[in-house]
């Protein structure tokens, strides 16, 4: 009980891990590309949470700076991903990711 009430870095890490797992499950199981992309955002956020928690733990700001870089990366990823999605939708009239199989050998 004591460990439950005293929030340590580990708590944040467990939360991050849980979020990460949710993201992974989403990426691996869903068909809808939009939701897959959102799951990737979940994963990135889990990473961010860890980075910020570590930054708090060590009292430095490197983790926060990296979190900002990750957010930048997420923005780029979302832009390109959604661009691809639109191009894909225009060609195949679907947003299901398992129908993207033209390159599958």
């Amino acid at each position, binding site marked *: 009980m004591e460990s439950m009430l005293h929030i340590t870095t*580990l708590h944040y890490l467990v939360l991050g891990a849980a979020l990460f797992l949710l*993201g992974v499950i989403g990426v691996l*199981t869903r068909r809808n590309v939009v939701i897959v992309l959102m799951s990737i955002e979940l994963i990135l956020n889990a990473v961010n949470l860890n980075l910020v928690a570590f930054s708090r733990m060590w009292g430095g700001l490197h983790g926060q700076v990296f979190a900002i870089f990750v957010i930048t990366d997420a923005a780029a990823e979302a832009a390109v991903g959604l661009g691809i999605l639109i191009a894909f939708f225009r060609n195949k009239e679907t947003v299901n990711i398992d129908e993207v199989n033209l390159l599958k050998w």
Partner: protein
Amino acid sequence: MAPVATPFFFYLLSGIMLIGGVLVITRKNPVHSALALIVTLLAQASIYLMLYAPFVAGVQIILYAGGIMVLFLFVIMLVSVDRVQRERQFNSQWVVGIIAATALGGLFMAVYTKGKDIFPEHALPMVESDNTQQIAMKLYGQYMFAFEIASLLLLVAIIGAVVMAKKRI
């Protein structure tokens, strides 16, 4: 001012985040997923505030909730969702996916139970007030190169997105 009732808010916010995360990956309708994701992101911004990272929290709200999620919603509206909603929601390898994720979860559990002693009990003190200045100093000093690379990445992403999404260039 020191945070009050930290455990209560931590469990509240993490509960919101996890419920939001579950909703993101289970909803049929992408708009509902996006709504759940927004809730998750906002809760996470609050957790950043609890971790003395106000600047990251602000960036999280502006960029994620105000920018990226709007982009998501925008695209969801452009691609019609009616048909997709009536179809199968999970792909054929969902069993494998769940197993892989469970394995990963087991790995995390193992790591955290084994290595939880290396984390110090008490976080180091941090000055809240000049967080923004310090981040700026880091960003434009030590991480200047990475910052430039990130801006280049964004430029490439802009061009890429335009090339992808435009019908005729």
